[in-house]
Each structure stands twice: as C-alpha cells, then as structure tokens.
C-alpha cells in the first residue's frame, strides 16, 4: 500500500532540481545511515532505529572516552621486517656470562630484539646448564638506568673520537693496565700486544676478593701460580675448612653440579658422599654439610695442621674444644677411608693454611682424582701483593697512565683511601667501567664498556674449555668494548670483532668451525689428561710452625664474607639480587652483623630459648645496632642472630655501602666492610682475630622474609612440613617416612585411598596431562638461582626494602630455611616452596568471583582480570604462597599514573621505560589490587604443548621446562606430565617412594608438588630405631631434636 505523501514546500511539490539536491545533501558528511531511496531520512522506516543505535553508541563511547583515561602506549611495527625475526617468537643465542673472572656459559632468550632471560648452556662441560642467582639476574643489568651512556672527560660528555685523541695526547710515563681477572684468550693477546707497543707498561690483575693464598701456596707446592680443577663429584669425602664452595667460593655453579652428583640418593642403593665442614660463620655450604663444626677464625691454621697430623696417623693436638677435636678426628678418618676419593678445600686467603691443605690433599691422594692439575682454573689469578705494590708505585709517582677494567679498588681495596690518594698522582687515568663506580668517579677519562650481552668475546674459564660471547642486542648506548679501544690505541686497523674472528678462525681452521663454536657457545680444544701435579712439600714445615705460632684470637673475632647475591659488590646495583633473600639469614637489602645465639644472650640480652624473647626478636624488624671496632676502624650495623655461628665470632658481609651512582638500588644499602680487612703478607686477610663490640642502644630495621626458623617447635614437631633423617636411619628403616604417612592417613584409607576417602565430595578423574613437580631436598643447596629465574621469567615486581619490611615481597617461589636440633649448631634444611597446585585447593573454593580455579591439567590458575582482591585465597592458603599487589608496583593500574603511596624509588626505577625492556611479553604484568602466584610457568607449558601439537606428537619432557627447574644448578627440581608413564617426574616419583612426601599432606589439599626428604650422611640413629618401639618414637624424636 502506498503511503500518502504530504508536501512541505513548493520545491518538494514541484520536485525542483534545487530541492532534490538539498534533500540529498542534507548531511554534508557521509553518514552511515541506510539510504532509503528517495524518501528521505525522516520518512524511512528503519533509520530511526539506526539513529538511536548511533546515538546510543556515541553517547556511550563519549562517556567511556571521557571517563577512562588510559595511557596510550605506541608500538611501532617494523617498516621492513627482518627476515629471521618473527614477532612473538623467541630466539636463543649462546653466549657467556662474564663478570670479572666469573664465567658461565649461557643461552640468552631474545624476544623482539630484547634479551629477556638467561638460561644455562647445557652443552657446557663445566656448568652443564646450571646457573646462579647472579647469572640469572645479569640480564637486568643490561637495562640498568645507571649505566653510563657516553664517554666522558672529567665528567663531561664527549665522543669516542675526541677521547681517543685526548688520551693519545696525554698518555705518558709508565702505563699500567689494571684489570680484574681476564679469562678471555683473545683479550689477553690484545693486552699483550698493547703492552708490547708501550715500553715499560705492565698488566696487573686485581680481584676484589682474591685467591692469593691458594695461588701462592700452589706456586710453592706445585710450582704453578694457578688454581687446579676440583672434582667434587669424584669425592666420597669432602672436608671444607670454611670454603663456601656451593655459594661463593671460586666456581659455585660448577661445584654445585658436581656436589649434587654425590648427594643424589638412589633409594635401592643408598650411598652418599660425606661432607664435613668447619667454619666460623654460618654459610650456605655449611648449611648443606652432613656434619658441621664451629671454630674461631684464628684457629683455622691449627685445625688444618691438626687435620694433617691426623691424616698422617699422628694425633690431634693443639685443639682445646672437645667437639672440634672429635670433628677433626672424624674428618681425618673419613679422608683416610677414602684415599683417592677425598678432597679438602679451604676458603682462607692465608698462604700457610693453603700450604697445609695442599699437604693434606697430597696425603689423601686427591691429586689426579679430585684435583686435576691437567686443567687449570683461570677464573682468579690476582695476587694482592701485586696490587699493593702498584699502589705504592702510584704513590711514588712511578705510574703515568692507568687503564682500569673491571677492577674497583676505590671501593673494594681494604685501604681505599690510600689507593684514592695514589690515583691522584697518576696523570692519566682511564676507566672502562660500564657504570660510574667508585673508581671511575675518580678517573679523568671514562669510556664505558658494553654489557656482556652486547659484547663479542671469548672466555676460557678452565684451560681448554672455551666459551663464546656474541651480542644479543645492538648496544643501547654510546659504549665501546674496551678491547676495541686497546686495538685502536695500539694502532691496529681491525676492530675487536675482526680480531676475534680472525683469532678463532685460525685456531679452528676456518669460518665453519667458528660459526659452529659460536652457535654452540662452547668448545673444548686440546684437553689434556688428568694430572696429579708434582707435589713439593718443602714449604709445609714452615707453614706448620707458622700455624702453631699464630697469634691467638682475642675475645671476639670477625669474619668478612661474600653473599651469594651481592658478591664483592657486583650485585649491589641489581634490584633482583638485592631483594633475593640471603639463603642463610633470609635478609634482603642490607648487610648486618651475624652473631650466634650464645653471643646474642650475653651481648644483646636476647635469649632465643625464652619463647617470649625469641618472639619479640622475631616479630619486630628493628634489630639492635652494634658498633664494631677493628684496629681503629669502626662500623655500625644491625645484628642478626644466626644459629650455626661460632659463639665468639661475628660475620659481616662485603659488597654493601656502594656509591649511589652505581644504581638506585645500591644507594644507602648497608655499609662497606672492606675497610675492616687487612693485608697480611701477600694476601688480604678477610678475618680479624680481635674486635670489640659496643651495643649502641639504638635499633635499625632489617627486612627479613622469614622470621621464624624452627619446625620442631616446643608446641609440636611439625614434621608434615619438612622431613629429614640420617643416612644411617634411612638404611636401618628405609620406609620410615612412608610408614609414618601411612599411619597418619590410616583413618582415611591410608596412602592408597586417601584421595577418595579423605573427602565427602566425589573424586574426579584427571585424564590427559597432569602437571606435577618433584623437589629433591637432598640436592637442593638453597642457592636461590631458581628464585631469581622465577623473577625474570614471570615479571615479578621488586618492591624495595620498606615494602619487604612490611611483608610485601612478591616472590612466587621462596626457599624456606628450617633449623632442627641444637640451637648453637643446628641442622639446616632448605625447602623451595612455590604454589603447590593443590587438586583440592583451599584457595579456589573461597574466592567469591571464581578468579582462581583449577585447570583440567592440574594447574591452579589465577585470572588477574577477574580478581577483585579480597585476599581470602591468600588467607586460606596453608602454604602462604599467594602474593597480593599492595600498590601499583608495575605501573599497570586501572588508574593511570598511580605509582604513589608505598611505591618507592626502587620500584619506580624498575618501571622505567628502559628497565621495562626486560619484561617477558608472554606474562601479564599484574595490576594493583590483584593476587598473583606461581603458575608453573603456564606460558612455557602452552608453548611446549603447541610445539608438540605442531609436530603431531605426544608431549615429551624436553618440550617443557619451568624456569626454576631450568635454572637449578643441581637439578633438584623435576617437572613434567605426571600422567605420562615415561616422563621424568613419573620416574622420579616411582623411584623414590620412600623419601617422598607432600607438605601438609593431612589437610587433604592434594598438592601437585612432591618433595623428597633430606637425608644427611651421618650415623646418628634416633632412639626409637635402636629400641624398636614405634609408640614412643615421636616423643623421643622431639627430645633428640632438642638435644
């Protein structure tokens, strides 16, 4: 039916041309309305709806646009896509972590041109894919905002050309290149070439914490000023005199791997290496030892001498302490029992002690078995006396030009003031530091070096074992490799890359070999056979008499030690390392005085055996300040009570109190303790045998991430948390742990049926993949590499000291440390704890909005978008592994520009555009107000599943490795599909039925993580084993533990 049409104007009636045009052009712009023939918009039937639709949309859009101010971040795509880069697909490059002498072969993961994660290189014959916390964290240093961005002359920006000219003009007098240990063969060649060009010049190596004692002792004993290869894996008996070889001594990654070999327990044939440790201040290695004995640092020489005497069949003399004497006898017996499979190492920098240790090693046949002189360890070659002489030369005006690479004596030399004044007498001072460190600050010319991830290079950590560096990113700043500078200044035409390539193509016989070596990252050339070394014992007699004549210690002695994360100060500017809790003290962001419980009682009036006083100490972060005076120098630090420290010894960590110019995270953190060291003979002595302490009466807060350390509390032995037993007990009754679990769960059907009978609810099948993890507490050393790896992989926020103090640290994975037994010298167990991915998770059912739920693959998942932040899940988690975003730590808040309140300097620094380049794009950064936790690296699981799917095959273990597992230097973490019959995790569970346990199993939360109990190689037999009484077992065990 035709509609009647009313005309509104004459134009319309006449349908004039002008009118028609008007009608058509009523709206000048193209409106997306439906053109309704000639009827016009208002007459049309449908457009009214469209109009309303658009009206509604535009109102809503305008409202939305006006109300939600979201910061716009632009991503610029490639104009021309590089052929081999696919956005979103990571590339991996083999390179090498080089920090002074420390050398670890690594694989750098590069996403969209940015290295974001470091993994160990499995091909390396030394570290075999292991990493350390420092290696894991080094990728963050690349994006450090405090890196130097251009060369400077007297602090003013300039160009490399200008610097080259200026230096050429001012180079005068005797030239000295001062470096930390160089392991790079090509660099050594360049240095030699450069020295040859400049008459009277020389190269001095300076290590902040040197191994002069060993080097010089070896020169006397073996005729080589070198450190041999140690092989802990070949040792059935390991005796360490204060060498923290799992934490900081020499090459901890390599040693951890070897050590774990001897600690891996085969349940069918339970044998382990035996590690006896003597030390003064609790260390990571001491914590892992089977037996540990405490002594004063001044007694070390006497102990070494006594041990030598005992090993040689003589008695132990000169040791007053009965327990210590017994320990030495035990050690000697164990060493003699395993001649040819025993090793003694000492951490002391005293030549005499190392001479005695060499004699012991010779006596027990370590040469050629556990010590290999065929392969030399090149990672520490500096001798302190050389540097001391250099300082004197400088003072005397005998040095005209000083080039400094890696070394930072203005900070780490015990007499830094003397060095500083000496430096003023040097006309031309050049620093190649990547950051404005304490020494570079005093230098005229500063030519910043590349970060190792931007560098070319090679390294020879051990003779014949080479590792290569290749850049993983174009240099971020105007920096230049120092080798390039040297080449330029020696008049060479080629740059370092050309030199390096040439150097290696000649060696490897062609570019193919070079390419292959670079791709693998490692190569072994000309490996010589194992050699025992030619021992010459003439110096021992002198050393022994020096040992007996050694000055007895005063009332209280001091040990200066390195921390795993900070080292000699290299890690101080890395927020990940600063926030990594020290494995032994569980403290972050500070150094402090470590005192024993006995000293705490006398000095601080804190009795840890008194529950009330212990509580007060534990729950209140402010700790008492103590002033330490050592030979006229004083330092004031807070005290931490650490069981396992000698009652008359205190410990202070090196590496703190750095200049704020090296990074915001180093500013104002701790105090520099290098000044407390002293030069004795040819080596710096990092202990002092007479210090005085004064309690100042003030307090200073220390940010601890764990305040309570005993699981065998008086109120109940919480063995469901962590299980440990002696090897003897295990051999006596291998199924003890299993029996205990069986008994505990008997009312609910025992181990077999606990899952179904422990609940009223129906039990579901779990077909397909079921992710599971197994952690071997026997091989876990507690080193913390996994924690930093987890930080890097999962974009975990750094929160800074003020927030850690308030219990706001964000770590998804933490390493719990527990003590048991004797308070003065307890057993220590480390337990890595991450989300247990419970199949009956208490966190899941309490979330009102179902933001955390269970995947069909056994993952306890966290949906950040859905989370409203009630924190109920965190409260109800018996493992307390959930972390809440208390403030806008990541800059990804729903409110833009909201990093206020408790967001401190360090957090802001981590959110700088440069630093954010380290973020893993596969992992969401979490916004303020949501809970987060371990996801079992779900991004890696997805990637692995897709890989398998693309290849149309079943998922295998090699497809999926979680970050903590990959970082672990001892392979203590096992992960995979527990439903698969072949997977490593299934095998691990099947092969270790006796040591296996779940944390808090009785709660029926059904964790997805199994632990293997810690077995300590001792003969201790809990009373109930011998009496054979099961009933009294628990009570007696507790009593024993309280000992």
């Amino acid at each position, binding site marked *: 039916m035709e509609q009647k049409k009313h005309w509104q104007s004459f134009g319309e009636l006449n349908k004039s041309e002008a009118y028609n045009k008007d009608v058509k052009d009523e709206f000048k712009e193209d409106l997306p309305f439906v053109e309704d023939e000639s009827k016009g918009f208002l007459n049309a039937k449908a457009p009214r709806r469209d109009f309303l639709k658009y009206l509604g949309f535009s109102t809503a859009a305008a409202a939305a646009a006006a109300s939600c101010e979201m910061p716009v971040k632009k991503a610029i795509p490639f104009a021309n896509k590089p052929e081999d880069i696919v956005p979103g697909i990571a590339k991996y490059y083999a390179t090498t972590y080089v920090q002074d002498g420390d050398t670890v072969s690594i694989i750098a993961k590069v996403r969209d041109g940015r290295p974001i994660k470091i993994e160990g290189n499995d091909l390396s014959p030394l570290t075999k894919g292991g990493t350390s916390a420092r290696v894991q964290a080094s990728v963050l240093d690349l994006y450090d905002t405090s890196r130097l961005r251009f060369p400077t002359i007297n602090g003013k920006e300039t160009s490399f050309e200008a610097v080259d000219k200026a230096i050429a003009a001012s180079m005068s007098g005797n030239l000295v290149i001062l470096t930390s240990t160089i392991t790079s063969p090509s660099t050594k060649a360049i240095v030699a070439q450069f020295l040859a060009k400049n008459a009277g010049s020389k190269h001095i190596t300076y290590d902040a914490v040197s191994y002069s004692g060993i080097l010089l002792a070896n020169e006397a004993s073996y005729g080589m000023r070198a450190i041999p290869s140690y092989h802990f894996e070949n040792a059935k008996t390991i005796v360490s005199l204060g060498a923290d070889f799992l934490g900081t001594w020499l090459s901890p990654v390599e040693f951890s791997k070897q050590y774990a070999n001897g600690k891996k327990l085969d349940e069918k044939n339970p044998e382990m290496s035996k590690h006896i440790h003597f030390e003064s201040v609790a260390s990571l290695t001491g914590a892992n030892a089977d037996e540990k004995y405490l002594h004063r640092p001044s007694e070390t020489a006497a102990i070494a001498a006594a041990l030598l005497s005992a090993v040689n069949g003589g008695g132990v003399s000169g040791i007053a302490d009965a327990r210590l004497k017994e320990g030495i006898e035990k050690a000697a017996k164990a060493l003699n029992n395993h001649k040819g499979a025993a090793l003694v190492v000492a951490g002391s920098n005293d030549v005499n002690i190392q001479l005695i240790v060499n004699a012991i090693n010779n006596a027990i046949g370590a040469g050629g078995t556990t010590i290999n002189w065929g392969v030399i360890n090149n990672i520490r070659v500096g001798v302190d006396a050389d540097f001391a002489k250099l300082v004197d030369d400088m003072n005397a005006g005998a040095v005209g030009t000083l080039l400094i690479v890696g070394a930072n004596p203005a900070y780490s030399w015990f007499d830094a003031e003397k060095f500083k004044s000496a430096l003023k007498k040097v006309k031309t001072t050049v620093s190649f530091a990547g950051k404005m460190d304490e020494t570079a600050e005093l230098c005229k010319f500063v030519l910043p070096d590349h970060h190792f991830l931007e560098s070319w290079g090679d390294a020879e950590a051990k003779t014949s074992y080479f590792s290569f560096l290749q850049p993983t990113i174009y240099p971020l700043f105007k920096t230049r490799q120092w080798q390039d500078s040297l080449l330029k200044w020696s008049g060479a035409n080629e740059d370092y890359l050309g030199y390096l390539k040439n150097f290696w193509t000649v060696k490897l016989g062609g570019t193919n070999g070079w390419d292959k070596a670079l791709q693998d990252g490692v190569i072994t050339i000309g490996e010589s056979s194992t050699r025992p070394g030619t021992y010459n014992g003439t110096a021992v007699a002198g050393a022994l008499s020096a040992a007996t004549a050694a000055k007895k210690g005063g009332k209280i002695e001091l040990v200066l030690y390195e921390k795993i994360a900070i080292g000699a100060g290299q890690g101080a500017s890395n927020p990940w390392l600063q926030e990594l809790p020290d494995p032994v003290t569980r403290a972050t962001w500070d150094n402090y005085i470590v005192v024993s419980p006995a000293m705490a009682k006398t000095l601080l009036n804190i009795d840890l055996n008194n*529950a*009330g006083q212990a509580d*007060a100490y*534990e*729950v*209140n*972060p402010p700790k008492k300040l103590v002033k330490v005076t050592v030979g006229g120098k004083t330092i004031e630090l807070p005290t931490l009570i650490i069981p396992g420290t000698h009652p008359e010894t205190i410990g202070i960590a090196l590496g703190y109190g750095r200049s704020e110019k090296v990074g915001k995270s180093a500013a104002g953190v701790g105090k520099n303790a290098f000044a407390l060291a002293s030069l004795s003979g040819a080596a710096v002595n990092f202990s002092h045998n007479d210090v005085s302490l004064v309690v100042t009466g003030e307090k200073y807060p220390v940010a601890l991430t*764990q*305040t*309570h*350390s*005993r699981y065998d509390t008086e*109120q*109940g032995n*919480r063995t469901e*948390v962590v299980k440990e037993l002696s090897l003897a007990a295990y051999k006596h009754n291998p199924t003890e742990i299993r029996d205990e679990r069986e008994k505990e769960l008997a009312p609910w059907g025992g181990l077999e049926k606990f899952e179904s009978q422990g609940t009223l609810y129906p039990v579901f099948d779990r077909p397909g993949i079921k992710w599971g993890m197994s952690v071997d507490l026997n091989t876990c050393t507690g080193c913390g590499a996994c924690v930093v790896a987890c930080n890097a992989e999962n974009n975990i926020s750094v929160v800074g000291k003020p*927030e850690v*103090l*308030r*219990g*706001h640290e964000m770590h998804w994975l*933490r390493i719990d*440390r*527990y003590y048991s037994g004797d308070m003065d010298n307890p057993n220590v167990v480390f337990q890595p*704890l991450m989300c247990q991915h419970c199949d009956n998770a*208490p966190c899941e*059912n*309490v*979330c*009102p*909005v*179902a933001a955390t739920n269970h995947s069909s693959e056994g993952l306890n998942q966290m949906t950040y978008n859905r*989370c*409203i*932040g*009630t*924190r*109920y899940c*965190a*409260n*109800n988690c*018996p*493992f*307390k592994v959930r*972390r*809440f*975003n*208390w*403030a806008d730590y990541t800059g990804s808040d*729903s409110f833009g520009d*909201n990093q*206020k*309140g*408790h967001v401190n300097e360090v957090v802001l620094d981590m959110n700088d555009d440069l630093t954010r380049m380290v973020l893993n794009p596969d992992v969401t950064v979490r*916004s303020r*107000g*949501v809970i987060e936790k371990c996801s079992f690296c779900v991004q890696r699981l997805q990637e692995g599943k897709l890989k398998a799917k693309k290849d149309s095959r079943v998922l295998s273990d090699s497809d999926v490795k979680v970050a903590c597992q990959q970082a672990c230097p001892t392979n203590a973490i096992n992960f995979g599909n527990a439903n698969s019959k072949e997977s490593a995790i299934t095998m691990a569970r099947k092969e270790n039925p006796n040591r296996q346990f779940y*944390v*808090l199993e009785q*709660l029926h939360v059904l964790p997805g993580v199994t632990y293997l109990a810690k077995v300590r190689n001792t003969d201790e037999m809990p009373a109930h084993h011998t009496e054979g009484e099961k009933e009294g077992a628990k009570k007696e065990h507790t009593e024993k533990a309280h000992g």
Partner: protein
Amino acid sequence: MHLKYESQLREPLVYGDKTYSKVTEDIVRPIEAKPTKLWYIGFYIAVALLMFGVYSVYREVTYGIGEWNLNKTVGWGWDITNFVWWVGIGHAGTLISAILLLFRQGWRTGVNRAAEAMTIFAVMCAGQFPIFHMGRVWMAFFVLPYPNSRGPLWVNFNSPLLWDVFAISTYFTVSLLFWYSGLLPDFATVRDRAFTKLRKRLYGIAAFGWTGSTKHWQRHESLSLVLAGLSTPLVLSVHTIVSFDFATSVIPGWHTTIFPPYFVAGAIFSGFAMVQTLMIIVRKVFAMEDYVTIGHIEAMNKVIVLTGSIVGIAYLTELFMGWYSQNKYEGYTFWYSRAYLFSPYGWSYWGMMACNVLSPQIFWFRKMRRNIFVTFFMSVIVNIGMWFERFVIIVTSLYRDYLPSSWSVYYSPSIWEIGFYAGTFGLFFTCFFLFAKYFPVIAIAEIKYVLKTTGEGYKNEMGNIEAQKLEEFVHEHAH
C-alpha cells in the same frame, strides 16, 4: 481497652502518669524543638570523623591496600575485624524487634526503635569493610550474580564471602523494611502535629499516607508479624554465615565447628551492649527516663550476662578442643598464640577474656544491673572485648599458621586503617544524630499499645481499683 492483665508486682514499663497525648508530647518534643548545642557539637564531631574516614578510604582506594599494614601472611586485619564487629552490633535491633515481638515481650517497646536504627546504621558501617577491603573495589560488582556480557563467568557459590553478600544484603533489607514499617504511624503523628508546610509535606511523604484507619492498623500488625517471622531466622543466619568465613577455611583457629552458635551469642552480646550505650545517652539527653526505664536496662543486662557467659563457655570449649584434639597446629594457635600471655598477641586474648567473660559477671548482682553508671561502663567494656574477640580470631590465627617459615612480623594497623574504623564511627553517629533529631526515637504507637497495661499511672489506677471494695467500684461505675 487492652485485655492483657499485668501483675501489680511487675515494674511499670512507662513511668509517670502518662496519657496518650503526654506520650506523644514527650517523644515528639525533640523533633519539634531546635537542636541543642550539645547536639551540634556531637553531630559535627561525627561528621569530622566521617570525613577522616572518607579520606582514609580515598587513600586506600587510590593508592592501594598497601596503605594498610596487612602483609603476605595476615591478609585480613582491622578491616574484617571491624566488619564482624559492626555486624555483631547490628544484631540486637532485629533480635529485639523480631524475636521479642514473637515472644510478646512488652519491654521491647521502649528500646526497639533506637535498637533497630542502630542495627541499620551498624550494618551500613559493617558493609563498608568488605567492600573497601577489596583490592579492586571498582570491580566489586563482580560479586553480584546477574546476567552479564563477560561470557560464562558467574559468581562462585562455594565461597562464604558470596554467602556474606546475600546474608548481609538480605538482613539489611529486611531490617530496613521492618524499621520503616514501624515508623509509619509515628511519622503520621509528627505530620499531624506539623507546624510548617514543609514539615507536613516531608513527614507526609514519609508516612506513606497513613490515616490510622482500622484497616491500616490491621495491616500494619500483620506486616509486623510477617516481617518478624522473616527476620527471626535472619538474626541467627547472618552471624552464622559471617562465622562461615572462618569456619569453612583450613586455617587453625578458624577451622572450628563451634563458630556459628558462638558468633551468634557474641553478636547478641555486643548488640545489647551497644543498645545500652546508646540508650543510656538518649534517655538522658532527651529526658526519656520514663520510657527507657531502669527496668529496661536491667532486662538487657540480664541478656548481656547470659550471652557473655555463653561466649565464655565457647572460649573454654575452644581451649579444651585445642588440647583434646591433639592437633598440634590448633594446639599452638589456641594455647600459644592466644592463651599464652607473653606471646606477641597474648594481650589481645586476655583483654578479650577480661572484657567479655570476667567483667560481665558483675551483672549477677541486681544492684549492679540497675546501676546506670556501671551499666554504661560495662557496655563500653563489652564492645571493646568483642572487638578483641574478632581481632584475636582473625589476626592470631593468621599470623602464625601452618608453615613456621611464613609466620609474620608483628601486624599493627596504619593510620589509614584506624582512620577507616574511625570513619565508620563517624558514619554511625552522623546517622544516629540525624535519626535522634528527625525521627521519633521511641515507638510512640507501640508505647501507647502497652501504656494501659504497664504504664505507672494506669497501674496505680488499677491498683486503686483492686484495693477498692467491690461495692464502691460498682457504685462508682453505676453512674
């Protein structure tokens, strides 16, 4: 005339020789008079507190929960403590109006209006905490199960927090309706006495056109009974469900089946204490001693000593079970973290014991029950004690749970946590001051309902009649 006969031996519920008009006059007087200076001072203090609370919450919402001192182990502290405390206080009102109505307790009429108002305001205060303790409060609507465009996402009906959402919103709605329906006839009274047009209009709207017809009264009575029937289970359910927040968890100290009755008793305990605190002030300030009599106060003190003792038995039962269960985790929480005076939070447990269990025993003595000062003092003490109870339950259970490695540093609140709490006091008293000024604080209609049986004047009259000789009575009434 009311058919109920009440013994002469019982104390009157309304003192003084009151008539219906006198009652109206007494109760409406404060509404029609100008507020006193004291009222202004109190009101402004309350508003100032409220503003401080608003600022505290503003900081927390914009900067994050980090403005509070909670930590990775203690995820709830003052926030949920205050929530449970306020919800507990919000219990007396409905108990008085609903359960006592069903039990035909005449004495409720003097205090029910104020008690119900207190309930409404307390629940409003309580509600702030679960809302603003959320890390992302702007997403709070996620807890509402409504059809949405976010795919198949739905709330988690397993979560006690969700049950809270329903329990508290239901309780609030029903309490509000109950309170308001009771107010209708009184609003009509105020309207009818209005001396300005605006008053007439406003109170007229509030009165919903109440005319006082028999039909109105009949419906009003039925509605009251229906709502009372609805509220009665709610009185028990709300705090039961609040207790489920803890009881259904796995944390030692929380995971206990005793919680529902124990929480309900505690809630009534604290609710009555709060009614006492408020009524003692109100009767003094508004000169309503005739309506809120010493008898009322004594009756409530009896409830306090009863519920306080129930709570005390619950505490002892918990301690007993902590030992009897031989569960070392529970044992540690109850015997060390709580009952050991020298443990870090031992003071809060013994503070709770002293305030909640020991001190209310004073009310076994009649003299004490009828002493205004003692009652006022005790009512404050009880509420402090009940705050301690919630703090003890929440914080001492959380800060040291299963893994010794996770045991927390000492948790004490930040200024903004305290500010939030103070702010809810501000909200509560702001509302209460407005209520006292603009609403009849005593249910006029209900007082009149009991006046002729329990009013002193009428009782005396009745007494006179009883004392009269029959002949005289007949003679008198024959005219």
